[in-house]
């Protein structure tokens, strides 16, 4: 594995990561409360007016997606910083843009009464039937834009730092080793993962930056009737890529921490590199599996959505799950909260992928679309996979990790 050559992490960098995670843990709890509130309302144990229910649903969705992105980016930043010289200032700038965006989003929802769902599907932001005003919807959309700007800065800094050390994204993805049998040393798993993430997320943020502004234009000038299908495609490309990329960022905690527990290195072989390259493409191509009931979608796009659904979870997942089992097997690993959570997270990720693949089958989707199956799948995937990874990393960051001499 490549040596850790970046300058030592300054205290402000470590504090930054801790602040990312502290805010995330707090918001996770708050969002859980909102989730429970919605379930209680559906069970008629608590009475929420329909408008308030959808406001809560919008806040829960936007909050969970945003905070998952923030926490996961903190994890990957922490480990990537060991190999390349990332900017601590940009880490904090991302947080500032994020918090500013959160204020705008909460204002849009709970002051402006925007309740159109976190996916802001066109033409909903502009057609509220009087439930919310233009200002509420605009505040929500500007909030998302602000968060997007922050993450764009962060991922561009990833790109800058990786390019400075590896000179090209192809090298950072290990393409010379994968395609040319190069004798150069392969990049470490964290660098490969970060390169994949920056590629897909910059593309997603670009799509989001286009579609959010177009919907804002439509809010104030409805004569600009944007194509709802194209808008939906761009929205899902942006949103699905962003939430999907969170698990690939948090996964780095498994790659970096578990090997320390077992005293074995995480193997970077051609299968590993091929898996990450394939996933780079698939993460960007899989979103049409959410549009299977949009019958006006071109058939080829739906076919790609279904086929890539079968395949998307497999490369990195299969390689990671197999490697996790093999490096832990007969390693004499000492189980504690960190190692336990990280190990369980791979199970949670696997278990969460299965219902996603099932729902990606058109025949199943025909029945399951707009049922609780969909939120069920991604809650399982995120809580047992992503959240377990994040909490494993949080335990690692505490004294518990350093006492074991893991760093």
């Amino acid at each position, binding site marked *: 594995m490549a040596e850790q050559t970046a300058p030592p992490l300054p205290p402000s960098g470590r504090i930054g990561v801790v602040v990312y995670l502290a805010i995330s843990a707090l918001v996770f709890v708050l969002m859980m409360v909102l989730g429970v509130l919605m379930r209680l309302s559906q069970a008629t144990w608590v009475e929420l007016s329909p408008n308030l229910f959808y406001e809560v649903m919008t806040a829960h969705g936007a909050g969970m997606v945003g905070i998952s992105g923030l926490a996961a980016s903190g994890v990957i930043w922490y480990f990537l910083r060991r190999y390349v010289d990332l*900017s601590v200032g*940009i880490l904090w700038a991302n947080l500032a843009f994020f918090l500013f965006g959160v204020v705008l989003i909460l204002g849009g929802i709970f002051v402006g009464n925007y309740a159109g769902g976190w996916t802001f599907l066109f033409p909903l932001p502009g057609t509220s039937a009087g439930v919310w005003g233009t200002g509420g919807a605009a505040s929500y959309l500007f909030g998302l834009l602000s968060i997007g700007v922050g993450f*764009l*800065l962060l991922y*561009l*800094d990833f*790109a*800058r730092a990786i*390019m400075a050390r*590896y*000179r*090209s*994204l*192809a*090298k*950072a993805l*290990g*393409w*010379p*080793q994968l*395609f*040319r*049998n*190069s*004798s*150069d*040393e*392969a990049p470490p798993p964290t660098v490969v993962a970060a390169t994949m993430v920056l590629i897909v997320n*910059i593309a997603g*943020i*670009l799509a989001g*930056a*286009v579609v959010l*502004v*177009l919907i804002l*234009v439509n809010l104030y000038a409805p*004569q*600009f*009737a*944007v*194509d709802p299908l194209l808008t939906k495609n761009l929205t899902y490309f942006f949103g699905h890529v962003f939430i999907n990329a969170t698990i690939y960022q948090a996964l780095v905690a498994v790659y970096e921490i578990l090997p320390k527990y077992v005293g074995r290195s995480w*193997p*970077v*072989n*051609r299968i590993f*590199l091929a898996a990450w390259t394939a996933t780079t493409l698939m993460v960007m191509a899989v979103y049409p599996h959410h549009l299977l009931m949009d019958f006006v979608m071109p058939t080829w796009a739906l076919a790609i959505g279904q086929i890539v659904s079968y395949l998307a979870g497999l490369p990195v997942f299969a390689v990671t799950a197999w490697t996790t089992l093999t490096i832990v097997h007969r390693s004499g690993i000492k189980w504690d909260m960190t190692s336990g959570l990280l190990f369980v997270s791979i199970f949670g990720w696997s278990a969460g992928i299965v219902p996603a693949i099932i729902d990606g089958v058109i025949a199943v989707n025909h029945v399951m679309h707009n049922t609780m199956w969909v939120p069920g799948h991604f809650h399982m995937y995120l809580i047992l996979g992503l959240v377990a990874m994040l909490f494993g990393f949080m335990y690692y960051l505490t004294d518990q990790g350093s006492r074991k001499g893991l760093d």
Partner: protein
Amino acid sequence: MTPLAALGDRWTLIAIGIVAAIAGTPLGPALAGTMLGHVLVQIPLLVAAGWGIGRYLEPRIDSQLRRWNAGGIPGILLASFAVGFWMIPRWLDGALTDPIVNAAKVVSLVVLAGMPLAWSWPRLHPVARGVVKIELLAMLFRLGWLYVISPDRFCNSYLLTDQVWLGRGLIVVGIALGITWLVPLFWDGFATATDAGAAGTTTR
């Protein structure tokens, strides 16, 4: 040194030639005859000419520049506003109907957009360059989309079909620029990687 050579290198001469051709020959009105030619050919040519002239002037006024153009940010903002101003349909129309507005367009795109761009781009932090590039792509796609779907004409001087062609052109330019910027990020390192023939591979 010939008087012509004293004006600068070959690129500076080409830049001055472009400005002269657009300002003083039928090329300018010919390009402005269509919305596509006006926005996607004439305006970028004037900015590029300003860049060429700015490149030549930079070493001569470097110390003054450093004072007000820290990190290249003020210059990039100035250039963005100057180009943004000439994206306003009202002023595109004005440039076609009023020679003074047209002269202001030529001068401002050269002096306030192209030259500051040349002075600022090399000083800009790589992350800021990335932001400018991504925002430029996003703006090309947004404007292109708006021009294609707009039910009304933005400019009195151009037809609705002209506007649709410009919209398509902006989207094509956005895609082309995106590919142009993306490919070197992958290709450069890939092409120079060491093959395994000379030494044993370290990748299993």
